[in-house]
């Protein structure tokens, strides 16, 4: 393993150089090494999913379906969705940043179950191999949503292997959630009370509740799809007395809370970043923690808002629309609290903070468009169109991916012991923001115009907006590639990072960069509140990478 790049002569022992060799990494139980194993794997899948997205956008440059065949296009959007959702969005923040930081943030040596943590990674990898096999064998074309009876009776593609890949990855997610819940309850250092926990930890706690309670439903649903496909049991097939809507209820019961699995950890990151770069404690700590829990709980009650035109009853639709608005309130509260945190702060514009600004703006736009979709009469027109595609990319890419990048930049010095080059960081953030908006804003217009989702070819009057979208995707791609390059560069040439380059609050900023294997030389005793920025001096000068 190339840890030599990070270690200079006379360097103190840390988790990267403590032991050498492939086995020491593949059989590690150190949460920080497992986080890096995840970092490499999810980045790999991100670029695979991104590659499919580029092909989709290239096809959509012209109204005719002339780049790939229809079946191929259907596989492209299916695999893009499945790879991105299950192998990037769901695991990314918890498995990379959550794994790395939670034990340190609470003053512990590791998670409660280090071996289960490693098992989580192996389950992810097995799922990933199954997904790669599915792709190489020709892919599945069910849509990431697997709707029946199309997926169970009418397609001859690799549906079951794709389903198995997702099934396996689901257990990775459940075990990570279990680990975090037990860790948060049982491993906090003396003095680290619940009310002193960083919001990053609260966010992962709320996320873990969803992972543990929701993912098993997805697992069962996938098993039922596989059984139906193999044995034609008639669960979802009306010709045999089954109900196709049953599948949708089961699927969305997990898949709606799943989107909160994706966004809540990102919100935890933003709280850490905004506080640090405003030099202020969070505005409304209790409200922020309650909001995280509120989103997690109410998020389980809204699933049928994906089914307003599916054939559910009027009364069911009314209830789910109302509940969906309930879940919008805590999200709005969080946006207001982050903004209020900046009030009378002392604000720096380092790259993590630029991503945080981007997050707040884009998540606001994405969240507001969720309110459009929650409104029944309007949803009838825009559901199953590009309006929905734009909405969820605003919250998942403009929200979660931007938050993830904020977090990676913020904690990179701690993880790698190096500073990334700040100028390039700012440039990439700008490209991501501009590219993202250019890609997805035209899709709102396309959606209201009536362009349906999952269309390989489209009427010519939609072309200009599609071309704008593809142009944006190209800029966005450059914005994503840059960090790949400069983070790798920084491993060798980046300025060595001090213990606390940002002058940030939190126990992770009191241990060396990178931390030793067991995090702390002595168990810390916490006597201060979270975000105690009144006590932490501002760094005089942040050592920028170049």
């Amino acid at each position, binding site marked *: 393993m190339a840890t030599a790049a990070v270690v200079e002569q006379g360097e103190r022992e840390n988790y990267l150089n403590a032991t050498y060799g492939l086995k020491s990494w593949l059989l590690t139980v150190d949460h920080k090494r497992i986080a890096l194993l995840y970092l490499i794997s999810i980045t790999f899948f991100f670029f695979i999913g991104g590659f499919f997205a580029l092909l989709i956008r290239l096809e959509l440059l012209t109204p005719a379906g002339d780049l790939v065949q*229809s079946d191929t296009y*259907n596989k492209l959007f299916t695999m893009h969705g499945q790879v991105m959702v299950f192998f990037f969005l769901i695991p990314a923040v918890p498995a990379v940043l959550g794994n790395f930081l939670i034990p340190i943030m609470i003053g512990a040596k590791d998670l409660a179950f280090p071996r289960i943590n490693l098992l989580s990674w192996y389950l992810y990898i097995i799922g990933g191999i199954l997904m790669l096999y599915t792709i190489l064998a020709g892919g599945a*074309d069910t849509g990431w949503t697997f709707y029946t*009876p*199309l997926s169970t009776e*009418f*397609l001859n593609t690799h549906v079951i292997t794709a389903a198995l890949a997702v099934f396996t990855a689901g257990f990775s997610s459940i075990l990570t959630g279990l680990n975090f819940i037990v860790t948060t309850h049982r491993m906090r250092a003396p003095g680290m009370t619940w009310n002193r926990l960083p919001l990053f930890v609260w966010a992962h706690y709320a996320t873990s509740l969803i992972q543990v309670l929701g993912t098993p439903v997805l697992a069962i649903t996938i098993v039922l799809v596989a059984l139906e496909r193999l044995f034609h049991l008639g669960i979802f097939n*009306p010709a045999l007395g089954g109900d*196709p809507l049953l599948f949708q209820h089961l699927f969305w019961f997990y898949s709606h809370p799943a989107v909160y699995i994706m966004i809540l950890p990102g919100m935890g990151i933003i709280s850490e970043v905004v506080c640090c770069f405003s030099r*202020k404690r969070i505005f*409304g*700590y209790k409200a922020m923690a309650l909001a995280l829990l509120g989103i997690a709980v109410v998020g389980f009650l809204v699933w049928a808002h994906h089914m307003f*035109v*599916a*054939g559910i009853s009027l009364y069911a*639709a009314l209830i789910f*629309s*109302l509940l969906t*608005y309930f879940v*919008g*309130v805590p999200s*709005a*509260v969080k*946006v*207001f609290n982050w*903004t*209020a945190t*900046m*009030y*009378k*702060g*002392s604000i720096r*514009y380092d790259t993590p903070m630029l991503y945080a*600004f981007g997050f*707040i*703006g884009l998540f*606001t*736009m994405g969240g*507001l468009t969720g*309110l*459009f979709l*929650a*409104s*029944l*009469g309007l949803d*009838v*027109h825009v559901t*199953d169109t590009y309006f929905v595609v734009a909405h969820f990319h605003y919250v998942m890419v403009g929200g979660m991916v931007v938050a993830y990048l904020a977090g990676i930049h913020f904690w990179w010095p701690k993880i790698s012991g190096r500073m990334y080059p700040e100028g390039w960081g700012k440039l990439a953030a700008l490209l991501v923001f501009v590219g993202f908006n250019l890609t997805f804003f035209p899709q709102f217009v396309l959606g*209201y*115009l*009536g362009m*349906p*989702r999952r*269309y*390989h*070819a489209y*009427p*010519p009057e939609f*072309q200009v907006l599609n*071309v704008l979208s593809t142009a944006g995707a190209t800029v966005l791609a450059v914005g994503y590639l840059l960090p790949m390059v400069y983070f790798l560069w920084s491993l060798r040439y980046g300025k060595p990072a001090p213990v606390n380059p940002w002058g940030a609050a939190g126990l992770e900023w009191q241990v060396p960069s990178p931390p030793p294997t067991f995090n702390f030389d002595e168990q810390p005793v916490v006597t201060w509140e979270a975000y105690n920025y009144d006590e932490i001096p501002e760094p005089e000068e942040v050592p920028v990478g170049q």
Partner: protein
Amino acid sequence: MLQHVPLWPESASTTSGWVDALYIFLLLVSAAMTTLIFTMIGIFAVKYRKRPGHHAEQIEGSTILELGWSIIPFGVMMIFFVWGALIYFREHTPPPNSAEIYTVAKQWMWKFEHMEGQREINELHVPIGRDVKMIMTSQDVIHSFYVPAFRIKQDVLPGRYTTIWFHATKPGTYHLFCAEYCGTQHSGMIGSVVVMEPKDYEAWMSGSGAQPLAVTGQTLFSQLGCVTCHRADTQGRGPNLAGTYGKSVMLQDGRTVTADENYVRESIVDPAAKIVQGFKPVMPTYQGQLSDEQLNALVAYVKTLGQPQSGQTANATGIAAATPQP
């Protein structure tokens, strides 16, 4: 490419007006909220930027503000909810005496049958100024009937009917899209809705000479032997169907259901599902023996039984027979 770049869909029905009004309201509120947040962040980012000599002021929070910015957004959201719910309720309540058109969706085309008997594939002719109710089913997977110009959409399911209604207001030809991914040619499952002035529509209608749907149903009703049990007098082994459609039916297990299109259809393909009180479960199932079009004809026929003009099954609910509403 740059010749015609629409940014707003055409409006061709009564529903489009309702939906557009709500959309514009949401756009305005969202634009205001987005501008507010962007502006506040912009101002704070500049006004409170790190400067020598200036320090951050630690502020714990404010319960009043938390309550305020929870309750006020919630109140605004309730407007979105109620307004949207009212439109949805109207969209799900077809007006009485709507003209009916049966639809069968299949991979990858739309088949329509007017009550007067005209059949169309991928093109749907309707007159302006009339309420039209689509009674739809799928032959295979889930599809979705979507006309952006009317702002209406409804998934079309195998094994049951779903319905949607509209009232066209502007002549023209408008896109019809399938909006639920249905396999290889999903994006090819498109067509047009041709909205015509009433006299043009009459002319188009009269050119076909097709047999009215309910008459086809009547023929099937005899041919398949339905008439042997479902006789007009009450000696039959099955319930008398005259006047059943639209009424409440008491079932053997004590439940009461409304005899809508789905009930009639289910009674033909799965008679054991809902046995009428006082009758034995002796009806054979016709599952797999009838095409969806034949089922539609039977349903259309059963609906006319016992209705005021039951002597003429022809244009009971046909478009041409009724006076167009303004």
